[in-house]
């Protein structure tokens, strides 16, 4: 049974609701929609080709698009995370790009699909608004959409293609939903289901939440329409509000006939609503069935990735700006109006949903979103609720503009403030919209959030040359452009840019979104990265493309060699002695049926929706209101009190002026207030950290400071680990002496570097000039290099390898022997609950050796509990006859969840790995290759002194560069022998600053007290593999008394062996 309206196809002039819609309003709706489409095309279409490269997500979607270009029916994608299934994300928009990729470049395909999405959304908003308001108001809603900051942000800042596209599809399906509930007719149901299916094909979350946020209020609107189009015969209920009719059902059991009439009247629409729900859910399941299958069979066990939209926007105002204030933009000012209209008109269901979205969009600012969303709170990105709110408010804003330009509010404004006042207000609002939208679009230019565009061609070319794609690669400092590089090559990366799909345990344990930006998550992030840089064999990782010098020290001291700088400025790093990818790699197979479903259903749904969209347009057009629509028509005869309006406007103007003057005065007074000295010194170091040299210079004592150029020279003279590669993460000042006008501090600075946190202690002075404190400039030590021209006989090596005019890829004669190395005195030890393998490695060959050291922890039953490669506590590259200590630390890395559990973030905190049993033994696998790089031996250690304190052995001295190269970062490896003459602990220290030839710098290395280290077991020769074969004891390996510094039981140590290695080039900052 279907309910027939009492009008069919034509608007009845007698209808109290529709009679307010004048013919010119209907025509204006069409015109305004066309203006909106033109605005969208001109504004966003002109910007998109230039802005999408700076967005967060655009390249990720391009990568997926490229996947379907290469393999439409094979969802397995090996290029990220050692392989993942693309069934983990609905493929609609990606397939559209993949199809277009056959006729245009990938980036152009993205722009085209995105433009289709925004145009669809413009029409969709118009059609959805038309279900609530008059055509002219709907037209204004569409125009407002094109100027909305949320759209601008989503397009030009976030690059969220599926969000825009799917909502566009979804909203265009809403008229079918409405008509199905009101009128019935199976074709309406079919249309609604097909659009639901097409929406799901593009983005399932839109269908899921859209059903609640867009369809539920629309269902109420439809029920109201049913009531209005089919009035009850009983007089008592005629004209009653919808709510009244529902209340009536709950009254005592009288008037049962009338009750039955109400039930019959709403029963069928209600049943149709249920049928629709079943249909849409069914479409959701079937359209992307492989996705649901993947979700169930491979559930996400990923540690939640922090997202700014879940933070408190009061505490993190920067995030509040990006995820709340910016997407709301000008609409936030109009929210009270929308709520007012919701409370007083038939738009209340829409307003209720709007308020719900507003609340959920506030993230962690209040506990309400967490209470509503429960577990989903930590998975969802809540800014999407703000986005949906910014769409839901559009019908209200359409009404507002309609009223301002053509309605009662405009007339009142004109009467109150003079002719044209309504246009000034309306135009001003539109100008505000435009200004905020443009601001969003150009924000990445004002404050770049991505690295400058990196030409991917040199990297793609490198990976395709000389079979470099037989190994995996990693990018560092690329931002989201990493996805674009991936899309252009068939080479594989251990990293990826879609964290929901990753399945590598080493990545899932950490709350690091990507390895490539791991520095932004401090030690947990860098620890995660280090696991991959060190355990390269596990991942067949051989190449790193680095666009961020911050990681250089980490790469050098985890054994990576710098190959060369590509034409785009990116530096290529190579790890020697890594096995290539196996020819057959593991992959997760889907059934052919699922592959076919995935390859056919989503695009079919989109194509079908497109056909319905076009045929619907041809049949009835979509700019006109329909007979069954029951829009809000604002009465034109209420509230005509211009005097009151004038008073209110003037009062508000006065308040605004007073607020501005008061606020400005307050800000000026605040700015003039002298800053306390401790804040001055902290601000000084913050300025230096952020390279705000002008601001830092302004904080120096104006009476004693040199000119800016001189001071700037002094700041830049010293580079190295802290100055060039450090990020200030901790500041503490300690007052040593103070007078009224002078203050002496001891400053404690914690610098996050790629390796660890470096602690620096400085003594500084502040001086008061007038009312303000300044920092007394420090002076450089004017050390003199002893000679002006230094000569030195050096050694250079060349390993020919394949660099010969022969096409053969591998010849036996070009291969070098692996250098003969030996391991001696190796032990499994435990310190502070962490297991480590320590020992001495000796290069007995006549060639420099590049070392790869790995160890297995073993249980009593000889089960392998953990495998780990030596990281930074390792000589790595030894000259012939050199020996060094090494320590393979079996460490876990603090995840953010652990940090939260520990009620604080301590970047130095390491956690032990999770082991299945107690380790009782360990084995070592050592390999060597001939090394020719990073063998600088120009650093001497002057005046080493050894002292003991509660923390153990402190080794301090002066590092002197007596060679001819600049040592950017210097690592000092100290191996301590115990009373038996066997290695017991190895640790490293780094020199804070770089050292130019002839210059010196202090350093410090610490070893824990011998008493705190427990020897678990000795590692015998039989448990050691050297170059793939069993090891023998080497009688030539130096012992504890040979080439060592002997100690008289300082902190329990009997002797120390030192090895010094350096990174010897200047970073280009």
């Amino acid at each position, binding site marked *: 049974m279907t309910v027939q309206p009492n009008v069919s196809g034509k608007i009845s002039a007698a209808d109290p609701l529709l009679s307010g819609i004048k013919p010119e309003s209907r025509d204006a709706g069409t015109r305004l929609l066309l203006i909106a489409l033109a605005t969208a095309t001109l504004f966003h279409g002109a910007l998109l080709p230039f802005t999408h490269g700076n967005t967060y997500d655009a390249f990720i979607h391009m990568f997926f698009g490229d996947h379907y270009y290469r393999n439409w029916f094979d969802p397995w994608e090996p290029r990220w995370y050692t392989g993942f299934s693309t069934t983990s994300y609905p493929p609609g928009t990606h397939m559209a790009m993949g199809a277009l990729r056959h006729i245009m470049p990938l980036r152009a395909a993205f722009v085209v699909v995105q433009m289709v999405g925004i145009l669809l959304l413009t029409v969709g908003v118009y059609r959805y608004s038309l279900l609530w308001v008059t055509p002219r108001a709907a037209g204004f809603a569409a125009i407002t959409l094109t100027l909305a900051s949320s759209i601008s942000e989503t397009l030009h800042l976030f690059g969220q293609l599926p969000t825009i596209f799917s909502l566009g599809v979804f909203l265009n399906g809403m008229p079918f939903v409405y008509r199905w509930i009101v009128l019935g007719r199976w074709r309406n149901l079919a249309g609604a289901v097909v659009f639901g299916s097409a929406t799901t094909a593009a983005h399932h979350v839109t269908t899921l939440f859209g059903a609640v946020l867009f369809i539920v209020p629309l269902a109420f609107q439809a029920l109201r329409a049913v009531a209005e189009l089919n009035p009850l015969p009983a007089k008592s209920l005629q004209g009653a509000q919808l709510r009244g009719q529902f209340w009536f059902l709950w009254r005592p059991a009288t008037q049962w006939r009338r009750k039955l009439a109400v039930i019959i009247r709403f029963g069928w629409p209600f049943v149709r609503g249920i049928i629709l729900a079943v249909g849409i859910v069914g479409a959701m399941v079937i359209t992307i069935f492989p996705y649901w299958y993947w979700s169930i069979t491979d559930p996400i066990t990923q540690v939640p990735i922090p997202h700014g939209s879940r933070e408190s926007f009061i505490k993190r105002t920067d995030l509040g700006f990006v995820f709340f204030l910016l997407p709301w933009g000008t609409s936030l000012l109009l929210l009270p109006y929308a709520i007012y209209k919701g409370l007083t008109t038939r738009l209340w269901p829409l307003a209720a949903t709007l308020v719900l979205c507003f609340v959920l969009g506030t993230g962690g600012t209040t506990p309400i979103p967490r209470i509503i969303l429960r577990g989903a709170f930590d998975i969802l990105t809540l800014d999407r609720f703000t986005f949906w709110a910014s769409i839901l408010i559009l019908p209200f804003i359409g009404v507002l503009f309609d009223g301002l330009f053509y309605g009662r509010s405009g007339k009142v404004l004109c009467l109150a403030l003079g002719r044209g006042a309504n246009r000034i207000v309306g135009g001003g609002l539109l100008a505000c919209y435009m200004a905020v939208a443009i601001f969003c679009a150009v924000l990445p230019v004002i404050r770049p959030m991505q690295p400058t565009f990196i030409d991917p061609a040199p990297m793609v070319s490198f990976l395709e040359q000389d079979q470099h794609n037989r190994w995996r690669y990693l990018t560092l400092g690329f931002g989201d452009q990493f996805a674009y590089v991936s899309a252009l090559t068939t080479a594989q990366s251990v990293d990826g840019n879609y964290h929901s799909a990753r399945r590598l345990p080493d990545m899932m344990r950490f709350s690091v979104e990507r390895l490539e930006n791991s520095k932004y998550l401090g030690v947990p992030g860098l620890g995660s990265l280090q696991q991959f840089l060190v355990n390269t064999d596990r991942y067949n990782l051989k190449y790193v493309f680095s666009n961020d010098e911050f990681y250089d020290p980490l790469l050098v001291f985890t054994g990576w060699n710098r190959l060369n700088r590509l034409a785009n400025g990116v530096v290529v790093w190579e790890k020697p002695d890594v096995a290539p990818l196996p020819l057959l790699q593991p992959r997760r197979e889907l059934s052919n049926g699922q592959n076919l479903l995935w390859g056919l259903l989503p695009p079919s749904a989109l194509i079908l929706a497109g056909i319905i969209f076009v045929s619907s347009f041809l049949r009835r057009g979509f700019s006109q209101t329909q007979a069954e629509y029951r829009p809000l028509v604002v009465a034109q005869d209420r509230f005509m009190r211009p005097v009151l309006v004038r008073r209110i406007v003037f009062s508000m103007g006065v308040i605004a002026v007073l607020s501005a003057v008061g606020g400005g005065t307050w800000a000026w007074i605040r700015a003039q207030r002298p800053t306390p000295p401790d804040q001055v010194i902290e601000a000084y170091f913050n300025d230096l950290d952020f390279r705000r040299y002008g601001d830092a210079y302004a904080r120096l004592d104006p009476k004693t400071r040199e000119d800016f150029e001189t001071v700037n020279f002094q700041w830049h003279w010293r580079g190295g680990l802290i100055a060039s590669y450090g990020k200030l993460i901790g500041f503490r000042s300690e007052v040593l002496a103070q007078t009224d006008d002078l203050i002496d501090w001891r400053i404690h600075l914690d610098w996050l570097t790629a390796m660890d946190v470096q602690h620096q202690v400085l003594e500084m002075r502040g001086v008061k000039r007038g009312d303000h404190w300044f920092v*007394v400039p420090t*002076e450089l030590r004017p050390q003199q290099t002893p000679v002006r021209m230094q000569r*030195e006989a050096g050694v250079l090596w060349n390993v020919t390898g394949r660099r010969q005019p022969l096409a053969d890829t591998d010849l036996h004669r070009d291969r070098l022997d692996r250098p003969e190395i030996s391991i001696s005195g190796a032990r499994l030890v435990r310190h502070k609950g962490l297991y480590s393998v320590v020992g001495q490695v000796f290069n007995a060959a006549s060639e420099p050796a590049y070392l790869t050291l790995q160890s297995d922890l073993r249980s009593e039953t000889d089960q392998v509990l953990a495998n780990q490669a030596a990281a930074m506590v390792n000589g790595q590259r030894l*000259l012939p006859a050199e020996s060094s200590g090494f320590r393979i630390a079996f460490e876990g890395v603090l995840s953010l969840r652990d940090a939260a559990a520990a009620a604080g973030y301590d970047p130095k905190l390491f956690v032990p790995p999770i082991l299945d049993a107690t380790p009782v033994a360990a084995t070592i696998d050592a390999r060597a290759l001939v090394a020719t790089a990073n063998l600088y031996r120009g650093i001497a250690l002057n005046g080493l002194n050894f002292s003991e304190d509660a923390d153990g052995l402190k080794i301090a001295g*002066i590092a002197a560069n*007596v*060679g001819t190269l600049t040592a950017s970062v210097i690592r000092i490896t100290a191996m301590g022998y115990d009373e038996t003459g066997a290695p017991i602990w190895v640790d490293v220290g780094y020199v804070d600053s770089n050292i130019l030839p002839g210059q010196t710098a202090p350093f410090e290395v610490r070893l824990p007290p011998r008493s705190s280290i427990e020897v678990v077991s000795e590692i015998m020769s039989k448990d050691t593999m050297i170059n793939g074969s069993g090891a023998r004891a080497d009688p*030539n390996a130096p012992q504890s008394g*040979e080439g060592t510094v002997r100690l008289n039981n300082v902190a329990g140590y009997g002797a120390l062996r030192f090895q010094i290695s350096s990174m010897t080039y200047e970073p280009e900052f």
Partner: protein
Amino acid sequence: MKSLVALLITIISTDIVAAEPILTDAFGIYMPSIEQAERSTWAGYSESLSDREPQGKTTRPGAAQDVLFYLGPKNLIAGGHKGQAMTLVLDAVGNLVADGANVKTTTGQTTADAQTKSGIASVFYLPGTLAGQFHAGAAVGAQQSNRAEFQVVPDLAGVVPVWGKKPVSLALFEDYADLNTAPLSDQFGNEILEGAGGQVQLDHGNGLTTLLPFVTAQGVGQARLLTRDIPGGGQINLSFERRTSPILSFEIDSPEPAGLLQIRAMTDAETASTRLKLGPFLTTEGHALNDGSTVQVKVTTSHGKVLHETGWILNGLLEVTLLVDSQAFPLTIEATSPLGSSSYVLMAPEMQVTP
């Protein structure tokens, strides 16, 4: 694939199987009509299977045509373990030649004969005691292999570190001192190769030690000491692998002070501080103390307050600012520089600056 399909067809169509003979050899079963012609040239025993009586045939490999030569290790330690040279001999179509073919192997200056077995001839060779680069190869009759190389390297375990000449017993202060070894060689007299690493250790005698790495170039280990920021001389020795050199005495020629140190003070009433200017730091070397030399200043005020300041000399002078005003005079000033320590009493500031 083509042959596999044909074979499948053959198996399915039994009539054809009956009609065509099938050959078997050490490498499998094949049909003469569809296999490549070279197959029939492979050496070994082949048997023909057909509806007639099975017939066998042995094909002998041809004469040696390709001589492939491998040896390893490519680096041998002088007087050390032996190496192995292996020759793989093939006929024109890739068959391993018949056993017993004579292979003449040349490794450096020595030659050795060996007979092939399964196409391979193997000889072991000793590296000898002479280090250097050597060539190697093999010949079978008139056929020769490509050239191969191997290296005999000095025995690092036999290298004794020795000072080349008596090291500079009196190095200049704040200068480089080159500390070179004698040409280092193993027990056979082979000079050590470039790039080996050792260490110079200078024990200052007061618990302080200086370590200098040395790297060999042209047989000589070269270390360099920067005589700045180190606590004087001491006992010095070399170490290389397990061996160490005799210990020698080593001194640094520190400069002596010349004349009295001048001290001037200037108080700043605005900040209630005193600027001290010390110097010039004159030396007996005929020049002021070098820029960057560290000076530690200990100041005791008239109230007994003790202040410590550290600074560096620039143009022979040191300037430091103290957090004391003119009321703190007289000041007792103790300056410690590479010239030694000296103490002074400053009764009053020379100049007072008012804002």
